[in-house]
């Protein structure tokens, strides 16, 4: 009997789940260092890496059972707890760096802007370390189990470059070839598994389902259409959102700032350790208030780190009014359908850290997502049909779902789910319902294991997806030079949205001339809202698209050609079985084929 594994490589926490043909999926406890002198198992592995200073752990600290030599740093619960007190030496959110187009993702940049750590590591290495730890923990408990069926999840907002880096990290970690799955889809698979045959009772053909995933540090939206007729329902993922660095942690921080300002006004300002303790206390207080509607306020106690606990603890309160104003109205305000969030402007003098969302209102980001999703679907006849026709598409300025599947720790709180449904109902003019039976905490890892089983056995309903974006390469226009006017870069579509796994296509009408022996560079663009573009379409201005990397290639001279000669080549796009995009140049005369590599270094 085969075992299928799913790994949730999360921004705040990682998890690993397994399932077999016979059993329901379950998460596996991960062995990790829990304290300065204790090792144990926990169901989640915090995605934190702590790089201690010399002298802090002269013998290297506690050793994991599979460790043969002292490690450079710690990973997991202890790393997160100890690193909280030394933020300069802590690496968190390494995953969000993988899709940061302006960062050198292979270079030693983490911990970001750390003045004290000399031996930094790259976002790629950090992801590799986390995956390696999960693998070692699994191997320690089940050494002989074959790992043929392994799925790793990535946010739907990850573009091909970030997906490729994740695959590379998995290979470096020793996981071999893994399949990637989008996280909102994984959450949906977990829901399908949980519901069994009952899922058809909750949806019908023509429904649009929104997967709304707001975790600790990120928010991810996806739309899935229910198609098909007469009991043969089918699912298709039709729109994905952008990478939003906004989540439950922001709420806790906002509440903590509010409380700390009130304390400072009352002449008891907090030092940085007290502020850290305040964030923890406020998180617990917020959860109590959101889960019990009868409570009017909760007492918050903020200890200092000194020994005198009773003498130095500061007492204050967190009121329902504060939670309502900040957590509910601040992050989920009821807005009009055309209210878009403030966006960061790229360029200009700006601290080049992670691109945290400038606008904390998640409902505005949701409005932006639904507006862009509508643009995307309107551009492709196939998607218009999947949604149920023009009439359904145009009934509102946004694309309104019929039902919502909630995922992520934030939606453990019922009032927040109610608020999102209320917002959608206002935009739609008719009720929007919740899909019952969601399990916000481990759904992504469980769903990944279910998907691994699905791919291997072929049994079960599969969500039709393919590439979530269309991809383009930049072509400099060949117009006459006019002083003072820079001709816009054109963009040639090389891979359409929805290109399926295991497929390939050639851009027939476009021939490129490359110099052999020299590195040629191309700009690489993508779009989430142009589903209608076909391969070979030339867009007049690449400025509308997002640029994420450069492509470079150096072609050795084919037989019968010398170095430095120009050879004609054709471009071919392939999506591998694992779901990642590859671009190749073909030389028709000699049938030779070379792969374009992504250059992920900073521009």
């Amino acid at each position, binding site marked *: 009997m085969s075992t299928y594994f799913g790994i949730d490589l999360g921004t705040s926490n990682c998890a690993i789940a397994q399932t077999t043909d016979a059993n329901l999926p379950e998460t596996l406890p991960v062995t990790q260092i*829990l304290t300065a*002198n204790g090792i144990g198992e926990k169901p989640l592995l915090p995605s934190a890496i702590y790089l201690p200073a010399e002298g802090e752990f002269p013998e290297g600290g*506690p050793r994991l059972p599979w460790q043969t030599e002292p490690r450079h740093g710690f990973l997991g619960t202890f790393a997160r707890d100890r690193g909280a007190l030394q933020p300069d030496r802590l690496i968190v959110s390494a995953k969000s760096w993988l899709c940061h187009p302006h960062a050198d993702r292979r270079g030693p940049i983490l911990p970001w802007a750390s003045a004290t750590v000399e031996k930094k590591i790259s976002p790629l290495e950090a992801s590799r370390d986390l995956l390696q730890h999960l693998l070692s923990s699994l191997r320690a408990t089940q050494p002989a189990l074959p790992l043929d069926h392994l799925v790793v999840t990535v946010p739907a907002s990850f573009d091909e470059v970030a997906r490729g880096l994740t695959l590379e990290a998995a290979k470096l970690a020793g996981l071999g070839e893994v399949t990637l799955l989008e996280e909102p889809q994984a959450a949906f698979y977990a829901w399908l598994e949980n519901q069994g045959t009952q899922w058809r009772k909750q949806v019908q053909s023509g429904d649009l389902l929104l997967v709304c995933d707001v975790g600790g540090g990120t928010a991810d939206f996806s739309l899935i259409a229910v198609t098909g007729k007469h009991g043969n329902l089918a699912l298709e993922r039709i729109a994905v959102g952008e990478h939003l660095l906004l989540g439950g942690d922001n709420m806790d921080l906002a509440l903590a700032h509010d409380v700390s300002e009130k304390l400072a006004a009352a002449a008891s300002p907090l030092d940085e350790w007290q502020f850290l303790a305040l964030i923890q206390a406020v998180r617990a207080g917020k959860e109590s208030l959101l889960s019990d509607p009868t409570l009017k306020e909760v007492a918050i106690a903020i200890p200092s780190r000194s020994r005198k606990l009773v003498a130095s603890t500061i007492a204050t309160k967190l009121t329902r009014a504060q939670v309502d104003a900040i957590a509910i109205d601040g992050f989920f305000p009821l807005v009009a359908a055309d209210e878009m969030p403030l966006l960061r402007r790229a360029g200009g003098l700006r601290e080049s850290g992670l691109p945290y969302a400038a606008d904390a209102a998640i409902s505005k980001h949701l409005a932006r997502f639904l507006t862009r999703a509508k643009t995307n679907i309107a551009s492709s006849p196939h998607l218009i049909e999947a949604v149920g026709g023009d009439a359904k598409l145009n009934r509102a300025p946004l694309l309104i779902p019929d039902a919502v599947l909630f995922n992520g720790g934030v939606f453990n709180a019922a009032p927040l789910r109610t608020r999102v449904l209320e917002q959608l109902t206002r935009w739609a003019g008719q009720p929007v319902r919740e899909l019952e039976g969601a399990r916000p905490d481990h759904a992504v890892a469980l769903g990944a294991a279910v998907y691994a089983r699905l791919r291997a056995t072929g049994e079960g309903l599969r969500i039709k997806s393919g590439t979530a974006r269309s991809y383009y390469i930049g072509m400099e226009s060949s117009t006459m030079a006019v002083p003072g006017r820079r001709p816009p870069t054109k963009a040639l579509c090389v891979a359409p949205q929805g290109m399926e796994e295991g497929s390939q296509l050639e851009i027939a009408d476009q021939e490129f001339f490359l110099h052999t022996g020299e590195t040629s560079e191309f700009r690489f663009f993508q779009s989430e809202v142009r589903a209608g573009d076909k391969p070979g379409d030339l867009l007049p201005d690449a400025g509308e698209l997002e640029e994420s990397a450069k492509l470079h290639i150096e072609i050795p001279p084919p037989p019968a050609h010398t170095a430095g000669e120009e050879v004609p080549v054709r471009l071919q796009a392939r999506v591998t079985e694992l779901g990642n995009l590859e671009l190749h140049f073909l030389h028709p005369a000699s049938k030779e084929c070379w792969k374009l590599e992504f250059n992920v270094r900073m521009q």
Partner: protein
Amino acid sequence: MKKTLLACGIVLLLVNAAVPFCPDPRGNGAAQILSAILGLVVISAALRASAPVPQIPQAAPAPVAPPPPPPRTEAEIVAFLALLQEHGRLVDFVKEDIATASDDQLGSAARVVHSGCRKVLEEYFDITPLHSAQEGAPVTLETGYDAAAHRLLGSVPDHPPYRGTLVHPGWIARSVKLPRVTGTTEQRPWPVVSPAEVQVGAV
């Protein structure tokens, strides 16, 4: 070395013995004497080689470090106390002098200890009430009742059944999964309860 010399010696003596059978008689005498002398010299050298040749003294093999001793029971207990201190500040609280503290101050501190220690207990133990009934409910204990799980108060007759009311339902740990202790040494057989904290940086 010794065997080589012996072999050479024997070969020479054989040559010596074979010389008379050589067809050419002219050099025989000299060859015979020469090979005899050489053979005897080589064999005596071989025999002397059997005496032990002084070897270059080799360093004694590095002593293999003995495996660290398993942590003592106290180490597990102190590690648990360290957890309650880390998350719940229990030791700070209990060691502090509270005679002059007001109830409000004490209450705030108690919240910190409560939430932290509760988190530790929930994470590493599964502690549930022993008796399912509510406090104040009537309870009858028959002969053979679980004596380790019940404590009798008040006026207790000689023999069961014992009729009374439940004053405290009790607690039982259904499972225990504490972190495994590491890093104990001869000098430090159990971990520190709470390390001293030094804030490094701008003074």
